[in-house]
């Protein structure tokens, strides 16, 4: 197991290298630094000196290959530097944002997980009946609505009309749960359709396996078949989609956070987009990649927990 993890981590190095190469090409080679400096400097018509100063300050004045080496070294050591806009250290911004993101995102994530798996089990239990037919159709409908509508309508309905929760904002501590209600509802509805349908497909596929017939021939009830035999077998494909998402809970959701003004990493990223803050976006891309790789390793490890046939060597 340990050897497997070590090997996976080593295997991640060329991938991280590739990712930082892509970000370098994107952010250094495509956009001329001068252009960047112009748009960043507050003065209307910056003098050449001002531009030079800004470039030096942000390290964009060196030759390309020097910049490349520096870029690589910094990314691999996770030294993200300072924001292009505010000059604040990016690590500091991440530290500030990760708390709210993690709280809101994990609450929504686990609520979503529980609700969708229960619904998928219900739909699979009534497979072939009208419950199944209309349930699946409803899923397609839910899938076809853009998340923006869920955001706007959710806030209007639950926040403004029904007044279940504060419209937007965030306060740390126990209060956070109140502010997480609306994002939770929105996340639930916007992902519900796709998830339930996916889990249903996975479960129905298992229902056709031979071991289900054996279980029935033994006299196991339909509920036993579904909740024990099928569920444990369906866990593998479900885990693939679930465990991979766990590390990203730290990053929060871009749209939801910025819409509900939650001061998390998602909002930070949206602000960076608005301000053309390349340094922050670069850092987030790299962070996201690392979280993805961690997620992939965790997924593999989690397989060993549910499937005795999997051995990590």
């Amino acid at each position, binding site marked *: 197991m340990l050897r497997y993890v070590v090997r996976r981590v080593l295997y991640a190095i060329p991938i991280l290298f590739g990712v930082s190469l892509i970000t370098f090409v994107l952010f250094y080679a495509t956009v001329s630094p001068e252009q960047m400096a112009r748009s960043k400097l507050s003065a209307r018509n910056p003098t050449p000196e001002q531009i030079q100063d800004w470039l030096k300050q942000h390290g964009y004045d060196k030759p390309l290959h020097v910049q490349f080496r520096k870029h690589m070294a910094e990314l691999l050591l996770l030294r993200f530097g300072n924001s292009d806009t505010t000059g604040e250290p990016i690590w500091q911004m991440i530290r500030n944002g990760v708390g709210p993101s993690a709280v809101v995102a994990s609450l929504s994530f686990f609520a979503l997980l529980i609700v969708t798996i229960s619904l998928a089990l219900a739909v699979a239990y009534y497979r072939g009946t009208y419950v199944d037919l209309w349930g699946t159709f409803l899923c397609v409908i839910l899938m076809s609505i853009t998340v923006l509508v869920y955001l706007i309508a959710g806030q209007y309905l639950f926040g403004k009309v029904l007044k279940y929760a504060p419209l937007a904002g965030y306060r740390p501590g126990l209060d956070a749960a109140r502010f997480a209600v609306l994002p939770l509802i929105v996340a639930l509805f916007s992902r519900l359709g796709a998830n339930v349908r996916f889990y249903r497909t996975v479960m129905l596929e298992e229902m056709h396996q*031979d*071991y289900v017939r*054996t279980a029935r021939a*033994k006299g196991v009830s339909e509920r036993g078949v579904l909740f024990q035999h099928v569920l444990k077998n369906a866990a593998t494909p479900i885990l693939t989609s679930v465990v991979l998402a766990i590390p990203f809970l730290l990053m929060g959701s871009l749209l939801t956070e910025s819409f509900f003004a939650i001061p998390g990493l998602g909002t930070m990223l949206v602000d960076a987009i608005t301000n053309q803050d390349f340094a922050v976006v670069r850092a987030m891309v790299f962070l996201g990649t690392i979280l993805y790789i961690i997620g992939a390793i965790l997924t593999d490890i989690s397989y060993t927990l549910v*499937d*005795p046939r999997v051995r990590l060597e």
Partner: protein
Amino acid sequence: MTEPLLRVEDLRTYFDTPAGTARAVDGVSFSIAPGETLALVGESGCGKSMTALSILQLVPEPAGYIAGGHVYFQGVDLLDYTWEEMRRVRGADIGMIFQEPMTSLNPVFTIGWQLMEAMAVHGKGRGPDTRRRAVELLTRVGLPEPERLLRQYPHELSGGMRQRVMIAMALANNPKLLIADEPTTALDVTVQKQILELIRELQQDFGMAVLLITHDLGIVAEVSDTVAVMYAGQIVEYATTRDLFRAPAHPYTRALFASRPSRDQRGRDLITIEGIVPQATAWPPACRFAPRCPERWPACENVAPVYQKLASPGEDQTGPAERGVRCHLYHPELARTRPEQPATLEVHP
């Protein structure tokens, strides 16, 4: 005559397919007395498995459904049972073993869990008693180190071992009837022998009836009392094993015997039955075997043969079974329309 343990009457199991209705089982009748072994023989795709699954009402839904007939078990029609009543019969009164030992066990649960579940669902709990019984069963089916086996997963076992586990599971509640659907087809020859031996032993010990499904006449000769030969969803011949081996009546049965590799044929080409089993959606209109039958004459393609009783040719008539065949050759009037001299019962094998 006493009521047989299982009496299947005019059983029909159909499938709705894009190509039309597939009549996989189309009017099958037979009965099994307590302690008797009936072999159901036929080529691949002729509906043997579906017959077995229909008895337990495990036909793959929603495509497949039981379209008609009766399945009397101890005098009660199982088709009248509710799903819950049926569940209590499965695994308790009727046990079943499947064709594919490699996939029939649930890969993510231990052998012990699955074996004890078979008892637990019929109200025996999961206590130490159940555990003791599980060990006992595994020992009985000839598996070494049962204690260790309880903690193992199916993928750690060989095919033969898995089939033994399946048998142990089917026997867990002392069923009165065991349905074994080609229990040895997926195994290699030496293991086949052992498994068959085991089934026969267990049958004597437990005193249960066995419905053995196979396409191997060699197996039939070894273990069964009576044989039902199935073709294209129907039973075409029904006889005691002795009678059948002495004098197969239906041309299809004879063809089956002829295509069996035997000692004196070694080195020569194997005779096979010409053609293939037709699609279940489009059985030939009259006699379903007619297109492949060496004895056919025009009547075979126009009039559907009916199942008729036949006098048993044996001297001692101790066996309970009557003899029957579905072929115009034995029809008093239609047989006379045949151009040549009708074939009488000859001994072929």
